[in-house]
């Protein structure tokens, strides 16, 4: 069976000539169906660039990306993407923004009412569903964007620093929710983060990316039982994984 997402020699160079910027790759990587893969790497190493290339929203300069055995040549519409900058529109309420994803896909908002309610509750935004984005804090906007990205229940998710702007406590709570969702439905997740702990807590595999031009330095397979709660996080094995990642970053001189 083919891996779900397969990267072969994928790289990205922005521009051409003397001003060209080698942003990413070449990288080979396989992501199997149902895996939770984190991309962990320093700022500017090309994580967002890779996300966009997998989503078919940015053309790779070289190499091949395949999803389910088919080469990606254009935008992939059956996945859920959470962009690094949120895609909330100012003229719609929180709920309206979540429904925008459904409406653009031609899905019925009435049929999804219950699942929107559920999503809103899971990120504690029920009381703010009639508010506009400018009435929300940065972290609340990010939670709304999270719901917007996932409301159509995609089997594959690309999440670009979805928890980046959240405070430590909310972040922990949403991490738990995301993990519960993954345990329940086993979507394939590609997850960008700067937090080593977060990556190891959530992922089946953590891909450590080098500084720009980003390459996969190592893929750490995290062999710990789910759900990875507080108990697991204080276990020596967990701490061992964190150390392992820290070593690599220290080697780059970014830690």
């Amino acid at each position, binding site marked *: 069976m083919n891996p779900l997402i397969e990267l072969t020699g994928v790289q990205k160079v922005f521009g051409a000539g003397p001003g060209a910027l080698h942003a990413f790759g070449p990288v080979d990587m396989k992501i199997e169906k149902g895996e939770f893969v984190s991309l962990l790497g320093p700022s500017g190493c090309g994580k967002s660039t890779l996300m966009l290339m997998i*989503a078919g*929203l940015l053309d790779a300069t070289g190499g091949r990306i395949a999803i389910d055995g088919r080469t990606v040549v254009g935008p992939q519409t059956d996945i859920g*993407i959470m962009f690094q900058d*949120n895609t909330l*529109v100012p*003229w719609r309420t929180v709920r309206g923004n979540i429904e925008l994803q459904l*409406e653009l896909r*031609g899905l019925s908002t009435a049929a999804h009412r219950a699942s929107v309610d559920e999503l809103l509750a899971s990120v504690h935004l029920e009381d703010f569903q009639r508010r506009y984005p*400018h009435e929300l804090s940065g972290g609340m906007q990010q939670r709304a964007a999270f719901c917007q990205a996932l409301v159509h229940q995609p089997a594959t998710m690309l999440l670009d620093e979805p928890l980046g702007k959240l405070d430590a406590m909310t972040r922990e709570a949403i991490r738990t929710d995301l993990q519960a969702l993954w345990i329940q439905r086993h979507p394939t997740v590609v997850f960008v983060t700067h937090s080593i702990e977060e990556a190891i807590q959530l992922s089946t595999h953590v891909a450590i990316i080098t500084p720009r031009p980003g390459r996969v330095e190592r893929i750490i397979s995290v062999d710990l039982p789910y759900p990875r709660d507080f108990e697991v996080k204080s276990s020596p094995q967990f701490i061992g994984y964190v150390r392992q990642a820290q070593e690599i970053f220290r080697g780059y001189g970014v830690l």
Partner: protein
Amino acid sequence: MSIAFFAAFFLAWQYSIVWFDIPRYILTPPSVIVTKGWADIDRLLYYTWITGVEVVLGYAVAVILALPLGLAIAFSSILRRTIYPFVVCVEMVPKIAFAPLFISWLGFGLLPKVIIVFLVCFFPIVLNAILAFSSLSEELSRFSVSTGASVWRTFVKVRLPAALPQCFVGFKYAAINATVGAAIAEFIGSDQGLGFYIQIVTGNMRPDLAFAGIFFLTILGLALFGLVTLAERLLIPWHISVRHQSR
């Protein structure tokens, strides 16, 4: 606050004429403008109506033609390379300079005034519409594409609402231009309207009536601008420019 400022302005106007003993045929105090203007109110109101029709027709035609053109230029790279440079060049031409020509071609009637109002309104609307429809944020356009939505659905649900604030910049600018265009067109060749009135009474050494005419012209401009602002508040209440006003 601003009412107090207006009051102070008119009071200063009124009394500086008395203090500095300015002759009445040069400047008239507001009190005289009101009484003399009131005496001539029928003519003033009728001419306000005439000029108002020119302004509204020219403005409406400009909106109706400029928006689709701006939209087309924003979305078609061929049009952007062909028509757009032409539009920018024509924008640099002072349209008002054509007024005498139009009047010599088309006579003293309504049509040349409507054309001139149209011209001074058309370009700000086109240029702002082009800007509006071609500056959707990269994230939002990627988001729309990733949903697989049709061009039309994306337009209705994302592009159009995102473009409205910038479109309104053009609408407001054009609204300010409109009365100026109409008045100048009437100065140049007309037998009715507020511009005509102001010119005739000034020739008759009646600055009081000229000011009354200017007052009605201002009211006309404010009314159009007010309508556009009202439409803006109704259509884009979420936008930051509107939010600041209504705080």
